[in-house]
């Protein structure tokens, strides 16, 4: 306990001694953590939107008109395909009724057709948009299937958007982490370098390497944590007004945006924890290397 008190006091001395540098680190870490948080939240919301769109994507498979065809067997065969998430069977009568309902007052035109032209068909849902193309290929290869209808272009665009958004989020994440890590690393390095003589003296008069290193590691962790907490507070403060604005201007996105306060709070807590961990790792690496080199006997 006594040692901890001394170490915390020494850490505070370091923070006060290099307050300008500390402030700059705090601001930079805060900005980078904010960018990291906003990018991740944007990505999560986009992912939410895309998965909603994907869940609404439907592949319609029409069977050949053949009275000898075993519908149950064909349904089981399609259900067994790798990319099928859910499936619904429509009989010709069901399909016609559905069509009539869709057409409303113009449904009388269907009566002119005489015999119901719609064969048995399946409405198939997939896990992901990128699965659609594979599923369509497999369905087309089945002799029982006469025709496959799906929103080809939409599928391609959603798949592409999903891929791009994931990549952008990953790049932004890596960039934010690298920049934050470099800033913390640099601050602690400058802090150590400006006190290298003192560190040598401390070691010479009996301070252990851990005793010397801990205040520096805590300094880096504290600055990074505070930066992340400021960023998290900024995100918490700006997110919900932003969501309200988007929902009032783009009502079709209403159900695709994360609005659960508990989820956002947990996300911000995670961001703060990540900031502290990042600061600790960076500081630990530089402090360990620096103190090792300075305390090595010739």
């Amino acid at each position, binding site marked *: 306990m006594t040692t901890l008190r001394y170490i915390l006091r020494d850490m505070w001395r370091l923070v006060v001694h290099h307050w300008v540098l500390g402030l700059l680190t705090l601001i930079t870490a805060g900005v980078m953590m904010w960018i990291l948080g906003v990018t991740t939240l944007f990505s999560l919301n986009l992912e939410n939107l895309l998965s909603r769109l994907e869940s609404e994507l439907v592949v319609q498979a029409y069977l050949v008109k053949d009275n000898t065809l075993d519908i149950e067997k064909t349904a089981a065969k399609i259900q067994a395909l790798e990319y099928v998430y859910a499936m619904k069977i429509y009989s010709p009568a069901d399909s016609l009724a559905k069509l009539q309902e869709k057409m409303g007052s113009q449904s009388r035109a269907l009566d002119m057709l005489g015999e119901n032209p719609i064969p048995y068909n399946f409405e198939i849902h997939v896990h992901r948009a990128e699965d659609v193309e594979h599923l369509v290929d497999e369905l087309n290869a089945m002799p029982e299937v006469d025709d496959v209808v799906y929103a080809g272009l939409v599928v391609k665009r959603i798949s592409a958007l999903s891929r791009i958004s994931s990549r952008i989020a990953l790049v932004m994440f890596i960039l934010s982490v690298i920049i934050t890590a470099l800033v913390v690393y640099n601050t602690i390095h400058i802090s150590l370098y400006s006190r290298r003589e003192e560190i040598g003296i401390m070691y010479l*008069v*009996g301070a*252990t390497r851990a005793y010397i290193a801990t205040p520096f590691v805590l300094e880096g962790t504290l600055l990074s944590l505070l930066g992340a907490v400021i960023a998290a507070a900024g995100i918490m403060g700006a997110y919900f007004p932003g969501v309200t604005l988007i929902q009032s201007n783009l009502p079709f996105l209403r159900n695709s945006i994360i609005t659960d306060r508990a989820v956002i709070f947990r996300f911000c807590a995670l961001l703060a924890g990540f900031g502290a961990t990042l600061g600790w790792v960076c500081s630990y690496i530089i402090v360990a290397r620096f103190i090792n080199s300075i305390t090595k006997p*010739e």
Partner: protein
Amino acid sequence: MNITFSDVTKTFEPDITALSDVNLNIEQGEFVYVVGQTGSGKSTLLRLITREILPSAGVVAVGGYDLRRMRRADVPYYRRDVGLVAQDFKLIPSLTVYENIAFVMETMSVPKKIVAERTKDVISQVGLWRRRFMRPNQLSGGEQQRVAIARALANSPSLFIADEPTGNLDFHTAADVMKILFSINAAGVTVVMSTHNQNIVNSSRRRVIELENGKLIRDEKGGTYTG
């Protein structure tokens, strides 16, 4: 704490031999002057004892421990038993006199109250209590040297290493510093002090170890030094 040098050689890159085949033995409670011209190897000898450097060949043993074999993690614990006074004082510039001295005890997790008592004792012993809140750059050379001595005394070491402690001091201040060192030695602490001050060596007649170009050329009890 006794010190033994067995066939100790120390070379520095690219090809500088600072010490060559030095053999000596210093017993617990002795007061030893290490004398010689600048560059003779005095500081190297002392830095080997404090384990700031390691011998290129031979064995340096302190209190029976071979310093080369000492684990790096054990070095701080060893140094807590070695009081060090350097010519350039080696005080932490950002700390006050009080904090510089308290620091060595704080590294050992000594409770604050005991740190305060002991710090007061040693600062008073070197006559600097009124200057305890000053930083090293606000003190004279002699005062800084006394702070360094107080710091070295704080842990009640068994061995006291002083590298030219009077080198930057005037005659009277040097005499004050020597009084402190003799009193430390009188308490049974081994003192090894490097100097090229003839007056100091000749007035006290202690054991003298003389180095020349890294070689031990004289080891004399009650010796003198003519420079």
